């Protein structure tokens, strides 16, 4: 071993990021570039009757104003992953019918953003208004129809135990416990807002975009503008965070169309408010969950029903419901039935966000089980342990060596759950000003997208004359460190240093085809591809050495970037590359493809202690422990950073983050003063640990972390608050007012 796997390695572009040299889309300036500002609907539902932009055009520096008449009226689904992906198409580039406050109705193009902003204020839009519907439950049965020929409740997926069995088991149980849980929409708030530049030169479109899904963007541009795929190029500059929010096409088609229209590069950088209302969100949800419970503490069956709010267009709706449909079944082993539907409403479009449905599903389920534990007066950890999957009782291909129980056991120890229970009870008896509580939550999420659809990657590696390597991977690193992990995996196989491998920018014209970066596939799928790639390169180096040194391949090995015959170095990798160029007249490069044979599951168990101020209801998180089963750790820095970041997002989900709307459909939390993200001084110290049994599907036994990190977090906090105040509140995020109501009852 080269000792790279499991080491603490900083992200590969850390230097560029620490110096401010890293180039994000908004930092790019092209020759003759102009700026676009979206005209967004100010009403929640209606039809554009007229757009008057005569005055706007009079402003010096305004180049053009584009409306739906200037763009193809072709429907697409922004969540498309690959050509002919059969998903419902409901969206157009620019709409005549508007379905939420923030729907795109046009674009002002000017010499500067400031001029475009001034011009926007002079544009008058007249609408024919319809009555909107905002809530998923209401929209599911409403007579208001958002899309012609389409039910608001778009479809239904059921999995798990059959309906009759579950109903029968519940009816025969000692008690029936039911819960209704409402979860609001939230936003990714990647610090980089959605940014794009469209360029059209010599009948070829180039789009620079803050995207996680370059090849799919390329297909959509080709489909909508009827362009040959070889005349569409998508480039991903440094990505300033994504969390799933940059997986779908948002402004790429607008920028491409605008550039074609004005024959100049057009840059569109969304403001924070625009990014919040006019890109993507995490689905809000209504959960109805019912369980039959026996006096001995056995949950005999659970009927779990969820409606998700997918926003104004179908987008990822069915996909999220489908992805969610397996997750609870990967964690709980007793009869459980899942039924889920996406519902369109007159709210901002939902899409992928870290966990892709798992945070909502596990939040609902964990709250429900916590309430059952409270009702029975039993320990929630013990109750969960009776009902979660065992390592050896599952189909290993789909689950991938689940170590959920080991995570719970280790976490309970690290957190000192039993002692904390006693300490808290003492503290709460003595203290007049504060109440403390402890909570627990679990979660599971996949590693890769298979079997939802194919999960494959193509990768290319070249050996240079000095022994360094160039790596072509359309792996969209968004700060999560997937490229660094891939380089570490290759370095381990090739006995090189991580810096010896240079990765190119994602560019659909120069990189081999890849799916986008979603479903936590960066290590499990792309990393395993990188392993195969490095192994193929090693083989090529050895085969070339056989020709150069006239020795048997079996006697050769590699170490320290050299080829060895037993314990004698024969030559460096650079020597072999030069020999190939000069004598064999070829380059040493390999192209491999890899497809995932199974989706694996990663697991986590979280524990938290909170303290509540009796006077104002404020919640402070005092202590936090998270233990995860992600298989083998590739980069300890990467996994710790991802897990801590995921927990930070989950704490916000429980306590502060929400997207709510007024009666007209305007977002109330429309800037970062109102949409509250936890700051450093509000965060507890987080202890993380890992169960590293490993799994044979990924590189060196690795699974995934990025999405799973956030799945158990919110419910851990919510359960801790409930433990402190003696009952669960009915709002998420938990409001101080409701805490005070319960305390003062």
């Amino acid at each position: 071993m080269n000792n790279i796997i499991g080491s603490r390695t900083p992200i590969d572009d850390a230097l560029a990021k620490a110096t401010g040299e890293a180039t994000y889309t908004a930092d790019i300036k092209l020759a003759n570039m102009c700026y676009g500002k979206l005209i967004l609907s100010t009403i929640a539902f209606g039809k554009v009757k007229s757009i008057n932009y005569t005055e706007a055009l009079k402003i010096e520096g305004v180049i053009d104003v584009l409306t739906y008449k200037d763009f193809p009226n072709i429907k697409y689904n922004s969540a498309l992953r690959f050509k002919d992906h059969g998903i419902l198409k409901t969206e157009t580039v620019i709409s005549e019918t508007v379905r939420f406050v923030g729907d795109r109705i046009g674009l002002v193009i000017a010499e500067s953003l400031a001029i475009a902003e001034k011009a926007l204020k002079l544009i008058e839009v007249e609408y024919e208004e319809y009555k909107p519907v905002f809530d998923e439950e209401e929209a599911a049965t409403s007579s208001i129809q958002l899309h012609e020929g389409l039910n608001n409740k778009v479809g239904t997926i059921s999995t798990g135990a059959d309906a009759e069995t579950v109903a029968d088991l519940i009816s025969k149980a000692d008690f029936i416990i039911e819960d209704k849980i409402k979860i609001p929409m939230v936003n990714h708030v990647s610090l980089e807002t959605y940014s794009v530049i469209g360029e059209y030169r010599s009948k070829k479109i180039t789009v620079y975009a803050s995207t996680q899904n370059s090849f799919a963007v390329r297909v959509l541009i080709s489909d909508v503008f009827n362009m040959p795929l070889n005349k569409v190029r998508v480039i991903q500059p440094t990505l300033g965070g994504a969390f799933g929010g940059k997986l779908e096409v948002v402004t790429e088609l607008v920028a491409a169309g605008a550039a074609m229209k004005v024959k100049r590069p057009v840059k569109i950088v969304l403001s924070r408010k625009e990014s919040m209302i006019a890109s993507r969100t995490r689905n809000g949800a209504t959960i109805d969950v019912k369980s039959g419970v026996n006096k001995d503490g056995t949950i005999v069956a659970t009927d779990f029903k969820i409606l998700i709010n997918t926003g104004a267009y179908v987008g990822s709706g069915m996909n999220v419901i489908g992805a969610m449909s397996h997750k609870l079944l990967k964690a709980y082993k007793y009869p459980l039935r899942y039924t889920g539907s996406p519902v369109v409403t007159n709210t901002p479009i939902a899409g992928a966000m870290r966990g892709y449905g798992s945070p909502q599903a596990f939040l609902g389920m964990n709250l429900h089980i916590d309430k059952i534990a409270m009702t029975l007066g039993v320990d929630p950890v013990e109750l969960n342990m009776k009902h979660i999957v065992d390592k050896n009782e599952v189909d290993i291909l789909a689950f991938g060596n689940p170590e959920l129980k080991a995570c719970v056991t280790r976490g309970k120890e690290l957190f000192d759950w039993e002692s904390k229970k006693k300490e808290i009870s003492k503290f709460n008896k003595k203290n007049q000003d504060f109440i403390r509580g402890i909570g627990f939550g679990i979660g599971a999420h996949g590693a890769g997208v298979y079997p939802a659809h194919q999960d494959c990657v193509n990768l290319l590696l070249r050996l240079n004359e000095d022994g360094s390597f160039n790596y072509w991977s359309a792996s969209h690193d968004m700060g999560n460190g997937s490229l660094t992990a891939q380089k570490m995996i290759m370095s381990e196989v090739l006995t090189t240093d991580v810096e010896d491998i240079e990765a190119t920018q994602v560019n659909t014209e120069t990189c081999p085809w890849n799916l986008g970066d979603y479903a936590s596939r960066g290590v499990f799928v792309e990393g395993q591809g990188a392993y195969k790639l490095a192994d193929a390169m090693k083989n090529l180096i050895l085969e070339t050495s056989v020709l150069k040194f006239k020795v048997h391949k079996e006697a050769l090995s590699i170490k320290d970037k050299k080829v060895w015959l037993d314990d004698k170095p024969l030559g460096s990798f650079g020597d072999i590359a030069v020999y190939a160029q000069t004598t064999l007249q070829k380059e040493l490069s390999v192209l491999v493809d890899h497809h995932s044979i199974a989706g694996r599951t990663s697991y986590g168990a979280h524990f938290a202690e909170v303290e509540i101020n009796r006077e104002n209801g404020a919640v402070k998180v005092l202590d936090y422990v998270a233990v995860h089963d992600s298989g083998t750790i590739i980069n300890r820095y990467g996994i710790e950073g991802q897990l801590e970041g995921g927990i930070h997002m989950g704490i916000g989900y429980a306590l502060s983050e929400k997207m709510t709307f007024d009666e007209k459909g305007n977002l109330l939390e429309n800037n970062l003063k109102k949409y509250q993200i936890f700051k450093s001084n509000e965060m507890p110290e987080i202890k993380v640990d890992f169960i590293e049994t490993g799994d044979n599907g990924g590189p060196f036994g690795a699974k995934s972390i990025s999405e799973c990190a956030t799945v158990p977090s919110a419910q851990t906090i919510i359960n801790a608050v409930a433990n402190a105040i003696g009952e669960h509140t009915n709002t998420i995020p938990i409001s101080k007012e409701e805490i005070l109501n319960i305390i003062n009852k």
Partner: protein
Amino acid sequence: MKLQLNMTVNDEAVNIEVEQDARLLDVLRDDLGLTGTKEGCGVGECGACTVIIDGKTANSCIVLAASMDGCDIKTIEYLSKDGKLNPMQQSFIDNSALQCGFCTPGFVLSGISLLDRNPNPTTEEIKEGISGNICRCTGYEQIIKAVEDVRDKKYVKDGACNE
């Protein structure tokens, strides 16, 4: 209306005509090409646009460029102007205190400014001192550690802003 503005940016004199209502952030990024300063929120809440004005950190998205006449401004580009990293930058790299990197220039400057004011902060004071910046990726643990390491003199203080 345009105004003539004289200021010092990263030790260089800048004489420039700016719009009366132009933000300092836009002048730095668009006119001077200093794109290391980022816009994350536009309301002075996230700290991605942090710069140092006359020795103090400020959110350049809510500073009018026109008010900067005669001021000394330092951006992230200043720190490694001579090709050498500031200890805070090195500590951020070594502690993996950055993921997507969009907040990093702001955090690095806030960390330096904190140690300038208080060379020996407690962990709680560090958490407080960098609470004007938002990071969506890390959960702050590694950022706090990076500042602690500079405080603990694990890096030689040869940098610029923390002399």
